[in-house]
């Protein structure tokens, strides 16, 4: 199946509003879907026999700082049976108080576990219903989210101390 056909399948199953944006660049399509439908769309992408995206390559975040909504979460999927790849993303905004939130897809692809933990600690995004939402790579006493655009490259003495607390 080529990329446009996969996009049509999503649109025909979930309605035209499910495909908020579709950007084709160098033969790879990135489809933006609403954040509240991500779980249903992912389940459809995995279980539909013609699509059968059973392999999740990664879940990553992108911070678009001065733009709102602020964060993108990108899901790179691949199908081992049908030999095609696809990319979907959701765009979530950071509320006034608290952190941006999106559903976790670990129920569909267990591999998303560590990817989402890393994205959560690097960007400050909460993945709802994640089985184990601890920090993965960063020290426990750091309270900052380094991959955000407004975080300085070298960190600061108070936020990123060299020694444990």
């Amino acid at each position, binding site marked *: 199946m080529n990329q446009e056909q996969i996009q049509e399948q999503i649109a025909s199953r979930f309605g035209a509003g499910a495909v908020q944006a579709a*950007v084709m660049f*160098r033969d790879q399509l990135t489809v933006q879907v609403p954040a509240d439908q991500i779980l249903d769309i992912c389940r459809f992408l995995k279980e539909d026999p013609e699509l059968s995206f059973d392999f999740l*390559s*990664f879940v*990553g975040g992108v911070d678009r700082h001065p733009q709102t909504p602020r964060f993108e979460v990108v899901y*790179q999927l691949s199908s081992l049976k049908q030999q095609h790849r696809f990319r979907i993303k959701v765009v979530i905004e950071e509320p006034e108080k608290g952190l941006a939130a999106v559903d976790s897809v670990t129920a569909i692809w267990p*591999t998303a576990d*560590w990817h989402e933990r890393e994205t959560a600690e690097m960007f400050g995004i909460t993945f709802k219903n994640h089985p184990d939402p601890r920090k993965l*790579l*960063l020290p426990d006493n750091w309270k900052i989210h380094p991959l955000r655009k407004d975080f300085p490259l070298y960190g600061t003495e108070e936020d990123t101390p060299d020694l444990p607390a």
Partner: protein
Amino acid sequence: MPEEATAQSGYHSEIMELNLGPHHPSTHGVFRAIVELDGEIVVNVVPHLGYLHRGYEKTCENKHYHQVIPLAERCDYMGASSNSLVFCLTMEKILDVKVPERAQVIRVIMAELSRIFSHLFWLGTHGHDVGAMTPLFYMLREREEIMNLFELTAGGRLMPNYLRIGGLIRDLEEGFVERLRDFTNHFDQRVDEYETLLTKNVIYIDRTKGIGILSLEDAIALGVSGPMIRASGLRWDIRKTEPYCGYENYDFDIPVETGCDVYSRYLVRVAEMRQSNRILKQALDRLPEGEIRARKAGVIFPPQEEIYTKMESLIHHFMLVVEGLRPPIGDFYQCIESPRGELGCYIVSDGGPRPYRLKWRAPAFVNLESLAKMAKGNFFADLIAILSSVDIVLAEVDR
């Protein structure tokens, strides 16, 4: 509190937590795991990562695209040229640049040498972890020859930093082709020697057969790729399914085993070394004459000789170094078959000289998730064997 006092023994048992600390000779780097043991049986393994986290992705957001290449090579330091290959391939797709034939063949040579390099080190340290200390010393001999070859290309023994966006930095030195041909001629016998040490060794088979079972559906669900999933029965190699760099022109097999255990992973990796040698011989026969870097003014470095004679080349070179190249706006994901699995690079470009977001899909990071599943129910000594069969490189896991 006493859990359960059996009538015969009168013992109570509780789960013991053991810290497999970051400083440990068998964890292949700074890897820490809290192992919950019931006697000697592993009940759960909780890895605590991050001891080698260097902020690679954030650093790359502050470097020009060409400056990312040496950083990328240090991610998986065992197969360094694979990392720069995936980054260069991603950038070449974004920039829509076609790499000349000679550079593609030499890139295949570097990638397969990296694969042999990485698998040799894995073989030595894996044997060491299960108690067979001899392969370690013998593989160092082959690795020394490969490191001398890497040094001939661009000077670095472990991380040669030889690839550039658009091709290679310079052409092969005098004598490289002859030395590589010598290497490929005797490498098959060396692999035979390694196999005599381990493949039919009763102790080794006892230690590794049936240990660390990872069924195929678990492997797919956990995102495992590379030799681990080929040892679980799936015939999937990105060099065959999504060929890059001219791999469709080479004749090689994909070794697949169905044992799903540590022994199968050993067999797959040893067979892969033989297939890599096969590809190297074909690449040497195919090596055409030609340029080693594409030409595209403003994004690819002009040839070194022209900088000294032509004014435009000098200006282009200067602007590239000082200001960096500006790719079109867009995002792209490219993956290759690294010695560990599906190594992917996702770049979001905003048109500026620095990557807006560089996401490194590290195969060792994803494969390590399967450790807990594989280790449950085995002895603690088997945990070490299973951990070494995952073939992690902490710099890739933690980035």
